[in-house]
């Protein structure tokens, strides 16, 4: 398959970003950590959407794959002293195996669809936590401190390292989503999403395709979880196997738009940035009101997702962003680039939320 412009752009961007840490004196190191977190959520959201967005099988299982990744590092590296980088790959593979195992059961043994499939994945996530709790080889309630873990020096000091690791995983996830989006696999999945029986009857190997997508998705989610364990630095069941990750991932993908690979990327950037700035904006008691409120309004007002909406209304997005960054620049609150960006995104989002008047059919074809 030839390299498409989008993919090329992604690779170029990734390579460029790779060297950002070299100029770390020019900006607060926190930017690297912030960027890492955005990468993390991009990887998670993209991996979720890779399967669910394409196939229409709604999964709550993200927490399970993520957790497998985190605990693989916790157990093998912190407890057994395995080297870090190889373990990442192992974590990804274990996650993929879990995904394929689930797939085998729900797609072959039983043909579960819709809600039942969603509930099944939710149940699996619960079980993973329960298993970690009873098994003292995994956790057993003690939790696992990762303070002693040997970090690879090759990638630079911690901020640079985790930034680069996150960058790699996010790039992989986005590339995977792009390739899928334009491949026979992708089209097969889109067909499955629209009408699985007809797709099968037209020659789409539905079972194999669903398994492939699930495997890739789980691999990426678990890999990204493994990297994230370094950020957590102290792994506990409550922190890892909670409902937070799956809910946020679903949230980001749907807000950004599940129909295009850019959707989860946009969703992750917007949600994480606003969440970070609002939650840290002090007045904690009201910041939650805003996060919740924004969420509600976005769901109501931008059903097709921010990305597609922005593509129909690029002007709105641009104006919104400009208006957004206005106040802080006027008020001279430019000491934090992230805050300024947050204003921009907020402005863009709010403007995009205004009702669309012109017919949406004008929308550029979603796929292709």
């Amino acid at each position, binding site marked *: 398959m030839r390299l498409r412009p989008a993919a090329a752009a992604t690779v170029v961007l990734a390579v460029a970003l790779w060297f950002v840490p070299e100029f770390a004196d020019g900006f607060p190191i926190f930017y690297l950590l912030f960027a890492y977190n955005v990468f993390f959520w991009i990887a998670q959201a993209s991996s979720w959407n890779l399967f669910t967005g394409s196939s229409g099988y709604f999964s709550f299982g993200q927490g399970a794959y993520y957790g497998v990744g985190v605990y693989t590092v916790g157990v093998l590296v912190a407890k057994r002293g395995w080297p870090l980088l190889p373990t990442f790959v192992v974590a990804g593979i274990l996650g993929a195996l879990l995904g394929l195992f689930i797939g085998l*059961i729900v797609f072959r043994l039983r043909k579960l669809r819709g809600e039942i499939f969603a*509930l*099944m994945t939710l149940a699996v996530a619960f079980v993973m936590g329960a298993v970690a709790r009873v098994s003292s080889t995994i956790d057993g309630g003690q939790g696992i401190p990762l303070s002693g873990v040997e970090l690879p020096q090759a990638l630079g000091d911690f901020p640079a390292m985790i930034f680069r690791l996150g960058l790699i995983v996010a790039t992989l996830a986005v590339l995977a989503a792009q390739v899928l989006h334009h491949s026979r696999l992708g089209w097969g999945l889109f067909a499955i999403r629209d009408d699985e029986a007809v797709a099968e009857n037209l020659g789409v190997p539905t079972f194999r395709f669903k398994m492939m997508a699930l495997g890739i998705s789980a691999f990426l989610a678990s890999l990204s979880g493994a990297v994230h364990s370094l950020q957590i630095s102290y792994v506990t069941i409550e922190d890892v196997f909670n409902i937070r990750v799956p809910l946020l991932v679903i949230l980001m993908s749907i*807000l950004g738009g599940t129909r295009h690979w850019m959707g989860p990327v946009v969703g992750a950037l917007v949600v994480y940035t606003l969440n970070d700035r609002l939650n840290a904006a002090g007045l904690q008691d009201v910041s*939650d009101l805003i996060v919740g409120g924004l*969420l509600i309004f976005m769901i109501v007002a931008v059903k097709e997702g921010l990305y597609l909406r922005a593509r129909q209304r690029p002007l709105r997005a641009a104006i919104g962003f400009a208006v957004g960054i206005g106040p802080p620049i006027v008020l001279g609150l430019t000491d934090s680039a992230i805050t300024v960006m947050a204003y921009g995104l907020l402005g863009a989002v709010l403007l995009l939320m205004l009702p669309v008047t012109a017919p949406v059919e004008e929308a550029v074809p979603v796929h292709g």
Partner: protein
Amino acid sequence: MSLLSQAVVSGVLAGGLYAMMSLGMSLSWGVLKVINLAQFSFILLSAYFTYQLTVSLGIDPFLSILVCVPLFGLAGMALQWVFNRIRISEFESLLFTFGLFIILESLAATVWTADFRRLSTEQNPYVSESIWIGSIALPVPQLAAFVAAILVAFGVRHLLRNTHFGRAVRALAQDRDVAVAFGVDNGKVSMQLAGLAAGFSALAGVFIAMSRAIFPGLAVEWFGIVFSVVILGGLGSTLGTLIAAVIIGVVGAVATVWGGPPMAPLAVFLVLIATLLFRPEGILGAARRDT
């Protein structure tokens, strides 16, 4: 032996509470196609209201039912009105109500602080009281919840089977468009049902306040158990919900006694998975129709 039987009984009663907490979610998801996380907020807030009424008015906690149930019933209806208005899809509703959940939790934290709130034994004598059957103790709050759950489950079952409202609801549950085509007033019926669902959650909240300490972060801890009950019982099946909750309560209790408390969640979730595999539509079979 007495240990096991006592454990089983307390499991059954705990099941009553789980059922009470899950009925609203099950109806909302199964019939209205709204995955309503706000049900958890209703439970939490109702518990706080119960706490507040009992402490500041010095009334019997049971009396707060008279306030909480109608109050949250109305809240539920209002919310459903919005959902109908914006024609929300199933998974959009999940996110919408997640936002609501966040908001309501932080409101609770603002009003009652993040600190624990627990009715003292004087204010709430029931917490340590039991009704005895031979050597078996039936703790009052759980017992009350259990009885309430049975009444509600069968009440709703009767309602749905033998009333015009019920037929309308079942019609909607099976195929909304067809039902509407046949003249069912989706808006009215769904709001009524949403009101009921929210009322049930409020009722659960009262029993929660009577049986344990509450704090804003508590609500999210209920996700596991409630979703398990809802799944096991079959979406929208009230009787299924009740039975599922009891099964889960008992399985958890027995696992606790035999394998230790950490075994309880594992046992419960394994039962859950087995059910999904072999009775995907829930223990009572075709849940939607059974409602």
